[in-house]
């Protein structure tokens, strides 16, 4: 059995309010149930409402995979209630920062420093474990496997493929396809294009054939040029990836924080109109907070 529930679908910063009541204002968090295992993808503010539902499962063991340590993907971590309760085991996985040499532990430790939070890391009662991942590392959790895939963002960002019982999903974390930094008439343009093609192939190969793709789709095509290099995808880039990887369902997430429910649906419809359905196309959806999908 593999099923997931969106607990946070907003990008960059939490955006609660009357304009976002349908799709939700919490930042990225996806609850994945793989057999009897609890796997959590990212710890944005959405991890707080998730954690409020977990008391009946105490003592629990859960596995939190952090795509990258930008605020909107870790901000809920200090409020993850199971960490305060003895008997629970919380395993936190993520990449290492090559610039500082620090592992994923740094994200939580620094959030829990005196200036930022009243409770120190040493005071957390649950058993905590940190695991640093490298590219293409497979983690076995019960009957499930989680594989890390290096994506492209202004930080080391792993996408995660979760497989269980013959079903699979892929979550990109934050991702923008690399673009050429050279002009077409520069000597190095073609070389760079070749590197980009290789990178795209390596990602598409890793994602190919999953049942569900959950993908960073922050921008409309009109918005993207002004945000190029910020590390996020657009409706068109996400549709292209879903098609290339041959997925069955594609959920657009990391909604732009200033886009209300109506705007989001309008942007979605415009993208669907721009890319009319083709044979074999995935089914496209907008990710919505509290929505559960069973594979």
């Amino acid at each position, binding site marked *: 059995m593999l099923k997931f529930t969106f607990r946070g679908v907003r990008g960059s910063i939490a955006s609660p309010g009357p304009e976002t009541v349908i799709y939700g204002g919490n930042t990225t968090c996806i609850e994945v149930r793989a057999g009897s295992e609890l796997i959590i993808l990212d710890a944005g503010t959405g991890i707080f409402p998730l954690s409020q539902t977990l008391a009946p499962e105490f003592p629990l063991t859960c596995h939190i995979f952090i795509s990258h340590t930008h605020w909107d993907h870790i901000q809920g971590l200090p409020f993850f209630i199971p960490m305060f309760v003895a008997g629970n085991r919380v395993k936190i996985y993520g*990449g290492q920062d090559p610039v500082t040499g620090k592992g994923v532990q740094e994200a939580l430790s620094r959030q829990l420093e005196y200036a930022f939070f009243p409770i120190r890391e040493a005071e957390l009662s649950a058993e905590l474990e940190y695991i640093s991942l490298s*590219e293409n590392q497979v983690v076995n959790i019960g009957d499930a496997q989680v594989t890390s895939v*290096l994506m492209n963002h202004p*930080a080391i*960002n792993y996408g995660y493929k979760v497989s269980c019982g013959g079903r699979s999903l892929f979550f990109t974390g934050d991702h923008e396809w690399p673009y050429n930094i050279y002009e077409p008439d520069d000597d190095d343009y073609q070389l760079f294009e070749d590197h980009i093609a290789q990178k795209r192939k390596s990602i598409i190969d890793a994602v190919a054939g999953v049942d569900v793709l959950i993908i960073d789709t922050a921008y409309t095509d009109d918005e993207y040029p002004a945000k190029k*290099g910020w590390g996020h995808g657009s409706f068109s880039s996400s549709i292209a990836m879903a098609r290339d990887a041959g997925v069955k369902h594609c959920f657009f997430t990391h909604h732009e924080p200033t886009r209300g429910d109506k705007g989001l649906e309008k942007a979605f419809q415009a993208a669907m109109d721009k890319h009319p359905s083709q044979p074999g196309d995935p089914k496209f959806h907008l990710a919505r907070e509290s929505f559960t999908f069973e594979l």
Partner: protein
Amino acid sequence: MVDEMPAFPGSVNKILQMTSSIDCAPKDLVQVIEHDPVMMAKILKLVNSAYFGLSREITSIKHGVVFVGLNTIKNLAISIATMGMLSKTGPAGLDMNRFLLHSLGTATVAKLLGKRLGVASDRATDYFVGGLLHDIGKVVFAQFMPQEMARALKRVEVEKVSLPIAEMIEIGADHAQLGGMLVEKWQLPHTLVTCIKEHHSQEQNGNTNKVLDCVVAANIMIKQMGFGCAGNLVEDRLPGHVSARFGMELAELRESMGNLDEELEKANAFICI
């Protein structure tokens, strides 16, 4: 210890200056990194390290930009730049400006020789990187064993021996061995390791590495042209297997390359910016 080695003054200044603007052009940043042997080696070390565990070798900065991301490469460069900078001469007496010119000249000519051998454009960068890094061991000696290196350089000047021999006498190892060991430990691509380790070998030693042959020829040619100087005043002869690779001796090879001024001026101009 070597992890703390700073980069060359020009590139440190450029990186710090460029990255203070949010509009810093990525290709300009890449160009600066690609012209500094220390930055190049350190960034290749990191992108090939277990931090990423990439299943492929990253052989150039451009490759690194695409695979680990521009902002990560940018911040790696900034972290190296903030370590300080190599002094222009330093206690070892190695003129770093002339050293850099020699390295860039060798890189430029090695790449041209690679193209001449019909190497695909996507591999030509390997030749440039090989040329740029071939003498990296000298920078390490100059930085961390300055007195011994100063004595070796003096010995070259007074006794007219080659620098590797002088280094063997004063230090017990030469810069090719040290540089090779270092980049091997740093898990840089194998071709590059061989290139650094074997660039003074007169024997083929079983290597059929085209990059190495081009770097060997370029190194000798650049030295002969007096373009920069990396402390070795003795001119090596072109090993037989390298001549065989190009089907000609050094003088003819040099002649056949035509006028290199324009290409080399680019290296010179870069240092002078």
